[in-house]
């Protein structure tokens, strides 16, 4: 006798227990601390903060630990927490121009004020597994600020000299693209300049989406998705002739202007990575030719993300710049509706939920259709479903 499956509740509880055991792993091995995750898996923490849209290293570390290192699951945990937080204030735009960078490179100029500074990059490491790390011994740390071996940048990085700034105040190095801007060779940053940008977590996207909304979407978008889309533009699907004008990474202050004070106060500091991409020029009979821009920004050390984002941002402006469109990366709806890994992961994985009612309808239908074709009638036994009634 068939008995319908019961006990879903007990099954779920048992699954949660198994999950807890699997997360903990071998109990003989000491449990990970959040400090270890945050300090030694810092790029994982950065990615989870960026795509989770929440700058909190400790919570991100907790999410990674709880998610057994599954970063998309960790992003989801952080998002679900973020959504319960009240929105207390809107910060002033961060000023990356005032960053004291820990890394700063330009591919468009051999040298420039402030210098090229490699910082903590994998770029010129040889990707050889370091068995000394496996033995528990850290490789001898290099002197800070000096690359392990000379890169293609001929100059050793200079320490940041605030006085070197063209403006003379306590700022970081001038932006590389400012030198192009001074000659009017590049477009001005194409922002709407609104003090009240849309909030994509509060207002559903409508199309065409303003650039501020697009950038928000890309900033929390899945790195892998942006990477593939950015790559596709380089291979000809919406080519933009990009140059990495400047990439900088470091700490910036976050300010708010409390209504009762009327002036800005610093509430904290965040690490960000910014990429200014210089792209092929646009011009017309009436407008002189200028380079165009693509922009990327990510929480933490997220250089690959920021660069891919800048490529996609630029591709999404094709329409506005009067370029040919049709490549996936140029399609607003395609890019913005599919960039979010929490949405994508949920919907892909929902396929494992039971669908047997829909499938039954399909079974009935296909049997009915086959019953209607003469060969199928001869070959098939009676269809299980009697078919349809009026």
């Amino acid at each position: 006798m068939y008995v319908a499956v019961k006990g879903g509740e007990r099954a779920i509880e048992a699954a949660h227990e198994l999950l807890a055991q699997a997360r903990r792993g071998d109990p003989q091995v000491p449990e990970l601390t959040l400090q270890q995750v945050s300090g030694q898996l810092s790029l994982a923490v950065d990615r989870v903060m960026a795509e989770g849209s929440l700058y909190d290293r400790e919570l991100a570390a907790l999410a990674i630990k709880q998610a057994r290192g599954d970063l998309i699951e960790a992003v989801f945990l952080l998002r679900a927490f973020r959504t319960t937080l009240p929105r207390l204030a809107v910060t002033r735009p961060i000023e990356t121009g005032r960053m004291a960078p820990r890394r700063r490179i330009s591919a468009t100029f051999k040298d420039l004020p402030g210098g090229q500074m490699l910082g903590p990059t994998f770029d010129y490491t040889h990707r050889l597994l370091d068995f000394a790390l496996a033995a528990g011994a850290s490789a001898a740390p290099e002197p800070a600020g000096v690359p392990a071996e000379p890169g293609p940048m001929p100059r050793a990085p200079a320490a940041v000299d605030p006085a070197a700034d063209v403006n003379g105040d306590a700022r970081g190095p001038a932006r590389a693209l400012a030198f192009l801007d001074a000659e009017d060779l590049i477009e001005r940053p194409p922002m709407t300049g609104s003090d009240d940008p849309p909030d994509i977590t509060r207002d559903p996207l409508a199309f065409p989406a303003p650039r501020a909304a697009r950038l928000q979407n890309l900033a929390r978008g899945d790195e892998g998705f942006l990477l593939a889309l950015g790559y596709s533009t380089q291979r000809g699907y919406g080519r933009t002739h990009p140059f990495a004008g400047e990439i900088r990474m470091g700490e910036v202050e976050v300010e708010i202007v409390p209504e009762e004070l009327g002036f800005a106060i610093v509430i904290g500091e965040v690490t960000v990575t910014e990429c200014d991409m210089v792209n092929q020029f646009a011009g017309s009979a009436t407008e002189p030719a200028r380079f165009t821009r693509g922009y990327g920004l990510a929480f933490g050390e997220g250089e690959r993300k920021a660069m891919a984002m800048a490529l996609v941002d630029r591709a999404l402006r094709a329409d506005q710049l009067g370029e040919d469109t049709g490549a996936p990366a140029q399609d607003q709806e395609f890019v913005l509706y599919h960039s979010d890994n929490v949405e994508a992961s949920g919907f892909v994985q929902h396929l494992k939920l039971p669908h047997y009612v829909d499938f039954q309808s399909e079974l009935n239908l296909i049997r009915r259709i086959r019953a209607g074709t003469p060969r199928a009638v001869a070959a098939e036994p009676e269809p299980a479903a009697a078919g349809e009634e009026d």
Partner: protein
Amino acid sequence: MIAGYNFAYLDEQTKRMIRRAILKATAIPGYQVPFASREMPLPYGWGTGGIQVTASIIGRGDTLKVIDQGADDTTNAVSIRRFFARTAGVRTTERTREASIIQTRHRIPETPLREGQIIVFQVPIPEPLRWLEPRERETRRMHAHADYGAMYVKLYEDIARYGRIATGYDYPVVVNGRYLMRPSPIPKFDNPKLDRLPALALFGAGREKRIYAVPPHTPVKSLDFEDHPFRVESWRERCALCGSGSSFLDEIVVDDSGRRMFVCSDTDYCSGRRAKRSGAEAA
């Protein structure tokens, strides 16, 4: 109830935003109202739209039933019911008649819904024109002008190719003679139940950020052609457990040789019929 969270999980501002969307959806039957869907602690695609709608309407006096595939004991239905038991402390039930709110995925209960009940559908893809036109800007224009010719062409192509309309579930309907609507992936067997349903039907799509509604007693017509009228499926078999000959049946493979049996997909309906039968035998 769990500490640290508001009643029914969502904060009051979010509920207000969703409530405004629900009211507009009810005022414009079948029209998909965009709303600022929140991240929920359950994955997108697993009922976040329905959960947000339920969380925004549910009160302490409500009795909630949650079904998936017609069944109260499927794991996702259990998980969602527990979520509301924990965050709202409401009564839950498996009885269709006792529920004031029924959240469902893929079915409408066999027991007729009554005036005063609310049925909340979990919707994966709300846009009925999406497979014909992937662009939101374009489908929005089509709805604005009630330009639904493409859907009829698609159905007609089905007839030319298969001799019938080859859609078994999520079968498109027109609400109150105006808006083309997806009834969510219910089998078309359930479509006639939506027509002039005495209960209020609310549809929530979390990932796609849309809410829509069918008010009570509103005409809901499944698309068809004069020479190919809409029909629902039926079974030669009866339910092996309760003997019903009029409910939607699940087909279950019972051994390695592929033998099948058929049982009601609606577990409450089925167990109610069995209880009545065993009561009659005992008497």
